[in-house]
Every structure is written in structure tokens, then in C-alpha cells.
């Protein structure tokens, strides 16, 4: 992956322009070229790049003058916090709504839910953010529209959700981010429910005299979780990607806002560093999902007879 990025950066433009501040004068440029080894053959450059990368040196930001990696890592907790909280909202609302829509597909409420999910899917994230701000902040004045609130530390985790002020700040952007995921989760839960509820083992559970709530809670839920978890896990990546938009709209101090500003300001080192981090996150995510899948589905974990 790093090879692709490196080749891409080198191929597409003059790396001198890429990695050196366009405002620097000739002397500075030459110094940086020597520093960065750009006067050496490409293969050697790549080698140095990797060596540096492993030591955590991915170049310095033009705008901030700080090492790019450090800047990104500084901002990562804020983004993670936002993304995880959004995921929480999406799951805790999405699954019950989806299961309900699956159990009673023709009721008025279900139809409303499904119509709402099309809407949620169509509305661009940034526009929802704007509407939310306009309504809850400007118009009603209930919730703040920008920035992150106070943080507190519990169990070694520093997060803004532990404070009331923090919660009020995170709520709108998290809800915004969650909306898109919500419609996905609802559709998945509904489809899964409609399929599972027709299975023989559900009928058998009824024949055993189990109450309908117990059947839904134990038998149904565990079976639909498998595909939902897989998709959600993989889509967590897209949550992080869309956080770029939400963070910009709500001025949330995370990685996303950093990268947007960086692209705007042509701050290449940050772009490169961000890319590498993202790839790392994606690979880790895939791993986690695989593990989760085998935990949830015993057929994968334990070899069977037939």
C-alpha cells in the first residue's frame, strides 16, 4: 500500500513541489532536496521513506511546521470518539427499528420507517448537518453547534462523553454522522428479520412454548447479528471517512477536519500521513470483523460433523 502511495506521489507530480513548501526560496529548496534525498535514485528514496516511516517520521506539515504524524495522532481520539458514538446511536436505534419493520412489514409504522430510511440514505451528510445546526442551534438554541466540549477521564480513557458539556457538543455531529449508517442498519435488520422469522427453528421455539419476546430476544437477534456486525464493521471505515464532512460542518477538532484543510492548503505531508493511517485503520478493522464473525457464528469457529 505504501508503495502505491509512494509511486502515486512521485508519478503524478514533481515530488519537489509535493513535499516542499512552495513558498521556500531556492536555497531552502536545495537544502530540503538534500535532506529528503530527492537527488538520489527513486528506489533509494523509497527505502529512506520506509525507514523514516517506521521511525514515525512522515514529513513535516507546511502549515503547522510540526511532524505530520504527530498532528494526526493528536487529532485521532476526537475522531474516534465521534465515530464510535455515532456507531452506538446507529446500532441502538437502528436494530430495534429494523427488527420491528421486519416483524410487521405492512404496518403504517414500518412503512414510515422504510420511507425514512430512503430519506436518510439520500440526504447528503453535510446538508443534514446544516439543517441540524439551523434547527437546534440557531433556531432553538438548545445545543451548541461547533467544537468539542470538556473532557474527563474514566478508566484511563479521556473522552468528552463523560461530561455534560461534552455530551451536548458531541450530540449533533454524532447524530448527523449516524443518520447515514442508521438507514443501512435499519434495512439490514429488517431484511435479516424477515428471513430469520420464517425459519423452522423459530417455529420450533414457538412449539416449545417460548414467549414471542423471548424468541425475538434470544433466537432472532443472535442470528441477524452476524450479517449486521460484518457490514457495520466494514462500514465503520466509511464512518471515519464521512467524519471529514461532519467535522468540517461542526468544526469538530478531529482528523477529518485536518485532512480537508490540508487538501485545501496543499499541505501534502499531512495528506500522505493521513492516507497511511487510514489504510492501517482499514486493515485493522477487517481483522476485527473477522474475529467478531467467528465469535458470533459457532459454525465458523468449531468444525461440525456434516
Amino acid at each position, binding site marked *: 500500500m505504501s508503495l502505491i502511495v509512494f509511486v502515486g506521489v512521485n508519478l503524478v507530480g514533481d515530488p519537489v513541489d509535493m513535499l516542499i513548501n512552495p513558498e521556500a526560496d531556492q536555497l531552502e529548496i536545495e537544502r530540503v532536496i538534500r535532506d529528503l534525498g530527492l537527488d538520489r535514485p527513486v528506489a533509494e528514496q523509497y527505502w529512506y521513506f520506509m525507514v523514516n516511516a517506521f521511525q514515525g517520521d512522515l514529513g513535516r506539515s507546511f502549515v503547522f511546521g510540526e511532524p505530520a504524524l504527530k498532528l494526526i495522532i493528536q487529532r485521532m481520539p476526537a475522531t474516534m470518539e465521534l465515530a464510535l458514538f455515532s456507531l452506538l446511536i446507529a446500532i441502538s436505534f437502528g436494530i430495534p427499528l429494523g427488527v420491528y419493520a421486519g416483524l410487521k412489514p405492512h404496518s403504517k409504522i414500518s412503512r414510515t420507517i422504510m420511507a425514512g430510511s430512503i430519506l436518510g440514505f439520500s440526504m447528503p451528510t453535510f446538508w443534514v448537518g446544516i439543517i441540524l445546526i439551523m434547527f437546534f442551534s440557531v433556531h432553538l438554541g438548545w445545543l451548541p453547534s461547533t467544537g468539542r466540549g470538556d473532557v474527563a477521564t474514566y478508566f484511563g480513557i479521556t473522552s468528552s462523553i463523560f461530561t455534560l458539556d461534552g455530551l451536548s457538543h458531541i450530540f449533533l455531529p454524532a447524530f448527523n454522522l449516524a443518520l447515514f449508517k442508521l438507514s443501512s442498519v435499519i434495512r439490514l435488520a429488517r431484511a435479516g428479520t424477515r428471513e430469520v422469522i420464517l425459519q423452522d427453528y423459530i*417455529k420450533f421455539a414457538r*412449539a*416449545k412454548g417460548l414467549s414471542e419476546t*423471548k424468541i425475538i430476544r434470544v433466537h432472532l437477534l443472535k*442470528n441477524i447479528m452476524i450479517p449486521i456486525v460484518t457490514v457495520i464493521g466494514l462500514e465503520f471505515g466509511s464512518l471515519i471517512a464521512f467524519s471529514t464532512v461532519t467535522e468540517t460542518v461542526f468544526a469538530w477538532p478531529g482528523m477529518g477536519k485536518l485532512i480537508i484543510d490540508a487538501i485545501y492548503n496543499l499541505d501534502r505531508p499531512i495528506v500522505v500521513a493521513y492516507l497511511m493511517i487510514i489504510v492501517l485503520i482499514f486493515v485493522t478493522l477487517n481483522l476485527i470483523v473477522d474475529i467478531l464473525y467467528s465469535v458470533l457464528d*459457532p*459454525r465458523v469457529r468449531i468444525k*461440525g460433523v456434516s
Partner: protein
Amino acid sequence: MRCTVDPILQIKDLQTHFFTKAGVLKAVDGVSLEIKSGEIVGLVGESGSGKSITGFSIMGLVDAPGQIVGGQILFKGQDLAKLSPAEMQAYRGNRIAMIFQDPMMTLNPVLRIETQMVETILSHDSSVSKVDAHARARDALGLVGISSPDERLRAYPHQFSGGMRQRVSIAIAMLNRPDLIIADEPTTALDVTIQGQVIHEMQRLCQETKTALLWITHDLAVVAGIAERICVMYAGRIVEKGANANIIAAPMHPYTKGLLGSVPGQNRRGQPLQQIEGMVPSMMNLPKGCAFQNRCNLVSDICTSTNPDATSTKDGRLVRCHNIAAGDRA
């Protein structure tokens, strides 16, 4: 407690209809049968005859768009058809249990056997402790002949073979010592060798525990082996009902005769296999008169105009046919 009200199950003129967009499907159209306590009764019929729906009707598990539209299902005097879903739930898995056809799909693949057994116990008696429930589950597995029950309890369904899974289903059915077990084609999906074992197990169990058993199947040979009484069903109605020995030795209804005749073992080598001509009529378009008319070799005018009533015979059967010999009638 072993009940003493006899018969424990008495179905009177049960009607279960399906209201589909294309029309009304009379899956069960006037079925009456009785089961005494501890008795094994076979309900035989081909696919589409309504036999499974009869079983589901008793359990109150008829799926939409079907519903019970008439008749009574008297279980120990209580009409099950009139009960609310919550009341019916108390009976299911408790006093009346059901075993399904396909053991692969009746057990939830992501839950352990123990979970699925213990929940059956706890749903009906929440005062039982987890430890006791576990012990009862273990005993039930032992009862159906599953070795090393402790290991088996922790396992998942896909780790069992088909025959073992069916035994587990039987064990689950027996957990709460029901008065009646309804078995819907329990051995159809199993290998022939396993079939024999399971049939034998069930027979032994029911005799030991004095549990009544309604064995629903399309295979006459199976029930001939274990049932005390046999009911033959066709197109939603019972066409012949009586003692096993009588029916097998001398079937009276043309359909029953055809069923027996088409069992391959009966023929000598070289003889062409007997069949019943024609096909089951569409359940939405039953002909006027006897439903068997276009496949019957005894068909006469009255058969095409009137549906035959049940006629009692000398040896204690009930047959629905216009053409029973006068000498056989009671």
C-alpha cells in the same frame, strides 16, 4: 400426573382454511379423530392432504393466512381452539409437544444445545433452578440414548449428525413430560438405517412414559409398525380410520387400498408396480362430491354429486365411501 381422562385428545370436525389472494384453500375440512392416553395413532396422507396442518392446528401454530375456522380441539376437556395465544403458549412444549421433520433446521444453529433445552424448562416453570434444569436436560439426553450427555450439552447443533439431532428434538419434546407428542414426519429426512432406530426409540419411550403419540407421515409402512390405530387422510378429510391390524389386513377405502398396494414390498418380482392413477386435486378447486372421484375405480354417479359421510363398520372403523359392501357396514 398421568391423566385419566380418556380420550385425552378429541378433535371434532376441525376446519382450517387458508385465505389467499387466489382463493380459499380448505386445508383441513372436517377432520375428527381421538387419541387415548398412552396410545400411538398414525395419521397418514400424501403431501397436500392436510395432515401437517392438522398437527399445527392442534398446537395453535397455523401461519397466516391460515386460521381455524370451525370445530373443536378438546384436550383433556379443554377446547384449544378457543384459547388465547398466551393460554395456548402454556400448553405448548409443556402438556403437548411437537417434533418437526427436518432436524437440521429445527435447532437454532448459533445456540448451544443446553441453552435450547434449558429454556424449554424455564419457560414453563421459572422456579426451577439452573442447576436442576441442567440435570433434567442431561437426563433427557440419556433417555433418548445419547452418550456422554455432559459434553453434548455444551455442543452446537452442527456438531451432531442428523439422527442425533432428531434424538435431541425428541429429548426436548419429552422434557416437561407432556401428555401428548405430535410428531410431524420425524423420520422422513433421516437415513433408512437411522429411521429404524429412531422409530424404535420413540416407541419405547412412549410405552415407558405412557405418553400419547400422534405420528404424522406419508409412509404407511412406518405407522404400520408402531401405531395402534391409523387414520388415513385425503384432500383435507379423514377417509378411513380404525385399528391398525384391521386396516392393514383389509383396507376398505379405495385410497387406502391404493396406498397399501403401491408399497413395493407387496409385489412379486416382475409384476408392474401398482399406482393410484391421477393426481391429488388442487385444494382450491375440489370437485363436487367425493374428492377421490377422478382416481377411483369404483366411482359411480352418487360419488360425483354427494360427499360421502363417515360410515361405521362392523370391526369398529369409520370409512368415507359410498361403495362399502353392505356386509361390512355396522
